[in-house]
């Protein structure tokens, strides 16, 4: 692995352990992806499917960060990187949460409940 800010190779980390980390990450990601598809294709109730897919997605994000992006709480550089990732997470939460807050309020006032969407789809010229 390359030492931060220098471009020098870090002797402590050998290529073998590098490859091992990448392989673990790759296999884990693969399993989690397949798991998501399996959940979608299974005949579990819809709520369960959604929950399973979300959990698999979250786990996969963490796998990518750990094994591919080398984030961890220890070590100067990885810590700095982790802070950046947390900052991103805050911004994404603001955006996603804000959208949810705004759009749910609006859809309530536009009388756009799930029922009305469904009925609008079944009878296009309802208005």
């Amino acid at each position: 692995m390359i030492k931060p800010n220098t471009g020098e190779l870090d002797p402590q980390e050998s290529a073998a352990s590098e490859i091992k980390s990448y392989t673990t990450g790759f296999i884990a990601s693969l399993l989690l992806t397949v798991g998501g598809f399996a959940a979608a294709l299974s005949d579990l109730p819809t709520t369960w499917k959604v929950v399973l897919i979300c959990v698999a997605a979250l786990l996969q994000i963490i796998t990518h960060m750990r094994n591919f992006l080398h984030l961890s709480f220890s070590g100067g550089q990885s810590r700095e990187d982790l802070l950046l990732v947390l900052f991103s997470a805050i911004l994404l939460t603001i955006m996603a949460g804000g959208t949810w807050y705004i759009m749910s309020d609006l859809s309530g006032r536009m009388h756009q409940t799930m029922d009305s969407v469904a009925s609008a789809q079944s009878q296009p010229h309802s208005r």
Partner: protein
Amino acid sequence: MSGNTSPIFGNLNWNVTPYTDLLQHVDSSTIVGAGAASVLVFGAIAGVALFTYMRWWGPLYRIWLTSPDAKKIGIMYIALALVMLARGIIEGFVMRAHQATALGTLAQPEAGLVAPDHFSQLFSTHGTIMIFFVAMPLLIGLINFVLPQQLGARDMAFPVLNQVSLGLTAAGAALIMISLLVGQFGTGGWTMYPPYTGIDFSPGEGVDYWLWAILISGMGSTLTGMNFAVTIFKERAPGMHFMRMPLFCWTSLCVAIMLVYAMPALTVSSAMLALDRYAGFHFFTNAAGGNMMNYANIFWMFGHPEVYILILPAFGVFSEISSTFSGKRLYGYTSLVIASMSIAVISFTVWLHHFFTMGQSAGVNIAFGIATMIIGIPTGVKIYDWMATMWRGRVRITTPIVYLTGFFLLFVIGGLSGIILANPSIDYQVHNSTFLVAHFHNVIIPGVLYGMLAGIHYWFPKAFGFRLSETWGRRTAYLFVGGFIFTFMPLYVLGMMGFPRRSPTFQNPEFLPWMYVAAFGGVLMMCALASLMWTFWTSYRNRTALAVPGGDPWNGSTLEWSSPAPVPEWTFPQIPQIQARGDWGEAKRAGDPWKGPERYTDIEMPANTAHGLLIAGAAFALGFAMVWHIWWLAILSFLAIPGMIALRGMRVITPKIIPAAEVEEADRRFRQQVASLASATRADEETERNRGVPDLSEFAG
């Protein structure tokens, strides 16, 4: 439309130029349209002829277009922005001229220079150009030029990516330019809200021009943001801790972060609208479960951070010049850093204030209204810091200081009208009126435009080796200040009187006097533009008298003033060791700052490449083909881009090596020259005696 799409030419045919409109129907509107197209055509022909006659094509290609040097890329960005600025200001003037003649009667409501549809195209292109192809390239260009020099780096972290970003921005600008000649532009304003811009209500090519210009150039800006961020994190010179960086670097860092997080939102909203238009999706349509409010939501999730992306680099410039031209250290460095960072974060929490009146409940409005008012605080802190910096300094009224003064007076008014608009119940009264138009021009022109022009004036000698004429510089600045006041103050009044923005016509004669005042302001703005161009020309002609080979014409304290003017390709003969904030200033205090390095080494620079140029060409072809439904070309150019990237990835690329002897020779010559030049005092700054070697005893920054 799609019924008669030709497999080769798509929807293109001979009826799409403004000349065909002119032949069908002669009136002032078609004449203006054909006139604008002719300016484009003749301008292009004249440009080609000039370059051929002067044999400039070779140097243009070798020295500029294929260069991965961030300084050159920055200059090209600014050149692009100035061309687009000319078009934007002329369009603004045409709109002002139109509205001054647009008084209709109730029986005959339409009047004025141009037809309503043409007017809608004007404000749509004007807004799009000014935001995406003037303000953005200006600030990205300035950061490209200044940031590596201030950090003590030789280049950006990813020089070729930088070239690609420039290419994508230029491709977007070219799409907008070509829309003058081929087809029409959209009429949905710079925000292009659906459902009006959906395929049902805007079937033609206009909205697609906007979409592809935005998608392509937006991609470029995202990449730029990443490049800036990585450069600041990884390329600082040894010893350049974060808290030693000049303020311009700090605001660049904020801009970089905001570009990375805000631009994707724009790409997403535009891509969704494109899917609606091209592939029959229903994200934003009225029917089939679409919800157009989500467009406004996502667009402004980008749009509000965007306005701070525009203003923060200007804040950086003002921090540098207020200190340099008052001969004082910047007041409240830490508070300025904290304020910039707070702005960067808070600006992601206020976007709803752009659609207070679009139907959400009062609770939501209040939450975002309060957030909006809070963001005024850090900005206020900054204004006080700059005033305190100048307080009791020996302020020289140079051109940048004229801009700064104009900014102080006018930006505060614009900020104040913003705080007024942040109150949802007041916003209900004045939204969509020219009060709003006055407000945003009131922050954008004194903020972004003055800031960038001040920055260009300030760093111009570093780029080209000679100063800009102070006389003409000041004249330009005064014209921009006066022009602003006359053009936009009346719009506050008109807005209060109830005049809606984007109106092609009106029937109330009481509006007319204010329209005349605003039109006069438009004339002043045109004069300012001409004066700006003249400043460059006359300074170029006097370049020997204005030359500053010493490289430090303003007695500055940041690193970039330690190198010669024009700055060499490698910037620093040896990467400096940073000892303090304002390192160059500390070196001046310590005695002889112009000591050369003891030993010179070979310098490795990225080699020139046509990569960015090729990708820009493919991106332009992709955009144009998609606009006109020329599918074969679209597929071809879409595949060409990853193809070229893969090809480059597989080649071994040898960097350019500048031999130590060459560096040593140039550097020794520079140091001898500095030693032989007489130093200039503050009083001599504007005279020929200023050769770029300041009187060190006067340094107090």
